[in-house]
């Protein structure tokens, strides 16, 4: 294989010393770069949440570690919290970090198909990180027009008062899209071309499948938004009027371009999370998936439908009211495949032997919490109810009940599951469980009050609700949510403590600590550059979920994909 040869060359003449970690083409090193950058940005985004939640709970007081929050700073904080958590945490960690780490290892490849494009992808991403962080410190402050960046507010510095901040924010987002287009090409091509001998389409584990479906959805949806972003940059800096009604432009055009990407984007981050969660559930329930093909087909159905629901974000934005009826139908229809995907995940538990390890707790919490996020979306998809609920805290609580399970719970599930493979050490289960309960319980205490606030008519992106007489009496709920956030942030200390402690002095991880079937567990922990010795790349004889198979070797409740069949034919 040409690639194998190329990698051999890399191992000999590749960068040495510190350059090995910052100039590497090894998919695992690039995964770590994305992972640590994403974690750093999660801390930035979490700190922002702390600052503006403190402002909402105790308006006008000086926030410890920050100071008094001005209205302009408040807007910049919420805007960048949202953008960072989606574009610089959820996407780099779920898709880029775990995609890079898991795809080659889980399909038995020695690396990505285009290792140098992979390195370029991270470098462009890093540039976007630097631009968005710098945008917070330029004169005028960071952009404060919400992560949706609706014009004319975002297009004209006379309105937003953040001339540099707005353009830098937009440039950073566009650069981030470029990075993920480069990464997406790699994921799709690698899955198509580099699978281990014998691995047919239905033998691919869910994690690679879902990351690739997500990459396809991303690549198909992001084009219009990149075009829109360029037009908006021109409006900001060159005096064009694409979105300016005074010069024949249309501000609502931006909303269509944005949400045509923005809604599929939800599924772009959901799919990788659900793929990893399903893999973890199968491993720790010791169960074959209840309907592999159902999960795959419902994911594809969701992906297709996700392109036809975008205008449910715009019911009351001034679109033709008749349009809302069509988008209500498509939006409610998308609940069917998503519900079915969750039902199948739950049904997989039936007849299993469930081991409540730390990764399994995270994976199960994903299902339990995401259900709440899913069903509360129905309220908003129903146009008649959205008239009232649009842009209230009900929306905010709803999408945090989807994004938090995806980006935080899903990430912790995957991180604790693959940590032994990534770092060659076992994590501390007791610290892991303290961190789990200390995160999941406060999460619910933060966002259930916000549902109530939304139903009570509280709108988003307002820096002080004391100004609104009808909303004053709900202040205890705001304080409760802020208190729970601080508790949750505190418990993250246990996570970092666990990571550092396990990395330094944890027990050495065996190749396959969880007794799982998929190929990454046949490589060393951690795998070397090239993953397997070039002459020992794995071959595949069966699907990834053959737990409890009656023909499995004596004494094993699992049957690794690479284990040659003993007496019986490989496939029945």
């Amino acid at each position: 294989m040409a690639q194998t040869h190329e990698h051999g060359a890399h191992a000999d003449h590749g960068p040495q010393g510190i350059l090995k970690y910052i100039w590497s083409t090894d998919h695992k090193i690039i995964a770590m770069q994305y992972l640590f950058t994403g974690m750093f940005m999660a801390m930035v985004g979490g700190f922002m949440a702390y600052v503006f939640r403190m402002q909402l709970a105790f308006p006008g007081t000086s926030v410890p570690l920050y100071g008094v929050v001005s209205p302009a700073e408040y807007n910049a904080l919420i805007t960048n919290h949202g953008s960072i958590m989606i574009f610089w945490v959820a996407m780099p960690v779920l898709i880029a970090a775990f995609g890079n780490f898991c795809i080659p290892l889980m399909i038995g490849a020695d690396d990505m198909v285009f290792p140098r494009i992979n390195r370029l992808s991270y470098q462009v991403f890093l540039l976007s990180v630097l631009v968005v962080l710098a945008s917070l410190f330029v004169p005028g402050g960071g952009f404060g027009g919400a992560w949706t960046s609706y014009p004319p507010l975002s297009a004209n510095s006379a309105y937003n008062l953040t001339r540099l901040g707005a353009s830098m924010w937009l440039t950073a987002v566009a650069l981030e899209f470029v990075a993920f287009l480069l990464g997406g090409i790699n994921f799709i091509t690698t899955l198509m071309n580099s699978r281990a001998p014998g691995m047919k389409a239905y033998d691919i584990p869910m994690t690679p499948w879902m990351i690739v479906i997500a990459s396809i959805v991303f690549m198909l949806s992001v084009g219009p938004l990149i075009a829109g972003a360029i037009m908006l940059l021109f409006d900001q800096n060159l005096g064009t009027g694409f979105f300016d009604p005074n010069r024949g432009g249309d501000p609502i055009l931006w909303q269509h371009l944005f949400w045509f990407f923005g809604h599929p984007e939800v599924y772009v981050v959901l799919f990788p999370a659900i793929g990893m969660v399903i893999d973890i559930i199968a491993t720790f329930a010791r169960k074959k998936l209840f309907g592999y093909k159902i999960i795959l087909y419902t994911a594809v159905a969701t992906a297709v439908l996700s392109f036809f629901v975008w205008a449910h974000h715009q019911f009351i934005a001034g679109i033709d009211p008749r349009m809302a009826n069509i988008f209500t139908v498509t939006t409610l229809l998308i609940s069917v495949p998503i519900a079915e995907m969750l039902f199948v995940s739950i049904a997989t538990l039936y007849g299993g032997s469930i081991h409540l390890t730390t990764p399994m707790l995270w994976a199960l919490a994903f299902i339990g919490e995401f259900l709440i996020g899913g069903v509360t979306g129905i309220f908003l998809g129903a146009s008649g109810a959205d008239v009232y609920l649009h842009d209230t805290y009900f929306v905010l609580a709803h999408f945090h009940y989807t994004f938090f399970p995806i980006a935080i719970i899903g990430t912790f599930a995957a991180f604790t599951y693959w940590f032994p493979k990534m770092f060659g050490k076992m994590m501390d289960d007791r610290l892991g469980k303290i961190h789990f309960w200390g995160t999941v319980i406060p999460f619910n205490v933060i966002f259930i009050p916000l549902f109530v606030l939304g139903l009570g008519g509280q709108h988003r992106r307002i820096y002080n609700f004391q100004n609104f007489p009808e909303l004053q009496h709900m202040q205890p709920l705001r304080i409760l949510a802020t208190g729970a956030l601080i508790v949750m942030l505190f418990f993250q200390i246990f996570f970092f403590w666990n990571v550092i402690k396990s990395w330094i002095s944890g027990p050495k991880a065996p190749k396959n600590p969880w007794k799982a079937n998929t190929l990454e567990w046949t490589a060393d922990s951690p795998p070397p550059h090239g993953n397997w010795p070039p002459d020992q790349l794995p071959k595949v004889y069966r699907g990834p979920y053959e737990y409890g198979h009656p023909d499995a070797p004596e004494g094993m409740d699992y049957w690794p994909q690479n284990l040659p069949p003993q007496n019986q034919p490989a496939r029945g």
Partner: protein
Amino acid sequence: MVERLIQEASSFAGSIDGLIALVMVLVGFWLILAEAVFFWLIFRFRAKPDVRTQYITGKEKHLKRWITIPHALVLVCDVFIIVGAVRVWYNVKQHLPEADYTVRVIGQQWAWVFQQPGQDGELDTADDIYTTDNLYVENEKTYHFELTSRDVLHDFSVPVFRLKQDAVPGRTITGWFRPTVAGTFDIQCAEICGIGHGVMLGHINVQTASEHEQWIAQHSPASAQ
């Protein structure tokens, strides 16, 4: 449900709250059922020594129906919700009942400007009354509003009316409401519009017929001449 948190003060508020309650019942049923099954399965099939996991592919007919029947039922619930949503939507947004009065609502950074007819009952005449941040309307009358913006997007939201509509520069969007309770209520701007978004508060003052007649008479520029 919603009316316990914030009162209903328009003719369509009850139908929107009713729709929210319908969705609450249907999705609440599914949520509780799914979570109950989920936790029961985790408890029932927790790892026990000497109990081997079962080999189930999901193709077994008697097991597969545990997925296919809920699948069909979710679809049925969706149809109920779609019908309810479209009916409410049609009445609130798509259909314009005959108006008793028409007012113009203009959003700008960061205030609401209201223009309403004076004693002649006609908009865009010399006796129009302009007010800022306070709209005075008569109870139990159907109002059309012509909503627009001078600069960026705003959103005219009256939570007690369950009314919400974006104001878009360059467009005039016509909607309606019919107050049913006299009193003073909040108008919130519900679309981020810059650093003053958080103080873009207005009030809608719903008056009785006689109060409103008096108010019009006092404030019409023509009567002052």
